[in-house]
């Protein structure tokens, strides 16, 4: 548990996870219809709900990524990512179970699928699920584990106990 509370580990996880989500949002924000086409291919929620997902999801990813990198609302941003990752894993499982062929998962790019072979990491398959589970693990650490306070003396202030009122008593710095 000491490792999981290490400040450097939390910084690393925040930058990696936040950076990944922020990066993953760029292409999708730039091309909403392109991303919608990919959401359709997953065939999870129907066409009109897919439109809303295609429009909203990239921005939620970007917001959560920015907050996590900036260190603002860290746990909440990680919780949003964790929830999204759980949905992604379940949806990918459903796609695989139904035998649907999604050539580009739309994870980071919205490029239309050309004919021919796609690299395995772009499709919806076991690699995608494994990668999302790794990311989910990182989000889980950020959600569940409070990083060690900068100084031992700050420990009392760092604990967000129910009695602590307002924001001032809770923030570690």
């Amino acid at each position, binding site marked *: 548990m000491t490792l999981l509370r290490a400040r450097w580990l939390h910084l690393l996880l925040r930058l990696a996870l936040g950076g990944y989500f922020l990066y993953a949002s760029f292409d999708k924000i730039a091309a909403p219809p392109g991303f919608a086409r990919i959401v*359709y*291919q997953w*065939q999870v929620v129907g*066409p*009109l709900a897919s439109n809303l997902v295609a*429009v909203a999801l990239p921005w939620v990813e970007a917001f*959560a990524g920015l907050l996590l990198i900036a260190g603002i*609302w860290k746990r*909440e941003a990680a*919780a949003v990512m964790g929830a999204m990752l759980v949905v992604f894993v379940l949806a990918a499982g459903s796609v695989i179970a139904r035998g649907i062929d999604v050539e580009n998962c739309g994870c980071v790019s919205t490029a239309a699928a050309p004919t021919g072979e796609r690299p395995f990491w772009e499709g919806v398959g076991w690699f995608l699920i494994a990668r999302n589970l790794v990311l989910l693990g990182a989000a889980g650490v950020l959600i569940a584990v409070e990083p060690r306070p900068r100084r031992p003396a700050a420990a009392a202030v760092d604990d967000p106990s129910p009695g602590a009122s307002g924001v001032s008593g809770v923030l570690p710095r």
Partner: protein
Amino acid sequence: MGRRLVRVAAIVAGGALCGLVWNAWSGRGFALGQSVFVQAGDEVIEAAEAKERLDRGALFLDARPRDFWAMGHIPGSAPLPEDEFDGAFAELEPRLRGTFNIVVYCSGYGCEASHIVARKLREKGIHAAILNEGWPAWTDAGYPVSTPKPEALAGS
């Protein structure tokens, strides 16, 4: 806990709101009220309308890969797979030129093939309507399908 939930909701709602605003005003967005595959000039019809057209003698075109057509299709439909359009079109062209009532379908709302085939036909001067949500919409409505005999499938 309550405050954390409010923050989580704020991230989701803020992101969704930005997305909607961006979609509406960035010039890169699309119409949210219809399938993203629909373009100007597409005639999209529901399964009930398609059934009426079938009863009136419409020619149905199956834009899915040929294997899917072989496993089951709308009665009387001809395979015109999007991925082998040119060859299949050449075979079908005389029939298509003689018909004014054509409906294209593919494997569901996640499938763009029917839209692509309809557009390719339009380029050749042939109008075809698109069955909204394709094959599953047809079968969910309980409309008739042609399926090959089991022994025919066993050989393939």
